[in-house]
């Protein structure tokens, strides 16, 4: 099943920092029998696109390590949030998004948290206006739909 408008709204609300809107939409989505697989793929595709925009055309592992450390330093005062982000998972996820070979598998929960937190800061770093954000989300939706179609085969 392709990405729905509600899933797009949830992602947009998350990126915009409208956590209550995102939370309410998620609860409604789950109450309506929706699962999280399409949303997870949408988050993944958004994360990969923003990571590639930020780090390409050239990147190295040192840049990735510094980036994750900077994010964790920003989160440092928010103890609960900073503890949720596993730096090694975040580094592996970023490098994987940039085309590196898959590293050691990590816990799914740690992976999704890393992608969500990295997505927030990557989007912020891109300094997109509304049109830019709409374009990014549309690209992510298209890529997520493509991946979901492959997964169904």
């Amino acid at each position, binding site marked *: 099943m392709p990405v729905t408008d509600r899933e797009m709204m949830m992602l947009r609300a998350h990126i915009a920092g409208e956590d209550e809107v995102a939370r309410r939409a998620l609860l409604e989505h789950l109450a309506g029998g929706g699962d999280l697989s399409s949303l997870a793929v949408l988050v993944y595709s958004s994360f990969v696109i923003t990571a590639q925009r930020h780090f390409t055309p050239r990147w190295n*592992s040192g840049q990735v390590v510094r980036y994750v450390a900077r994010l*964790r330093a920003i989160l*440092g*005062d928010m103890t609960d949030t900073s503890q949720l982000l*596993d730096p*090694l998972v975040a580094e592996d996820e970023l490098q994987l998004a940039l085309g590196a070979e898959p590293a050691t598998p990590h816990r799914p929960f740690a992976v999704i948290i890393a992608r969500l937190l990295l997505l927030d800061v990557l989007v912020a770093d891109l300094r997109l206006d509304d049109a830019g954000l709409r374009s990014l989300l549309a690209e992510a939706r298209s890529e997520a739909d493509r991946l979901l179609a492959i997964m169904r085969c």
Partner: protein
Amino acid sequence: MGITGEQVAALRAQLEPDADEHSDDFRALLSAAFHVAVRRRFTDRTRASDVIEFVGEIRAESTAAATAIDPRTAERMILAVAGDEEVGDITAGVRFEQQVALLTEMIPGAGELDAFVADARELADQWLA
């Protein structure tokens, strides 16, 4: 028993590859060197975010450092010296490995090395007395 000149030499050697001297006294000397190195760089007012960025910076310098230094463990060990972090749950073996890995990146240049090793020796002697 005090720290011997040989153990001080071993500390120097530990900062080179392939050194192998892991007696209890030597571990104390290495731990003291780690304390001195942390105290030279950080204070009681150091924030966790400063330590996170410092560890990130040294891990970013090489793949070897990124692999050898576990960021969370390393940050906690630094904050245990410069703050009030508890590290009792980290095994002695892991603490030793991380101290060696961090010290490799934290020792001062040649001009300050003698004073640094002397400070580490003095602290280790205090601990062992």
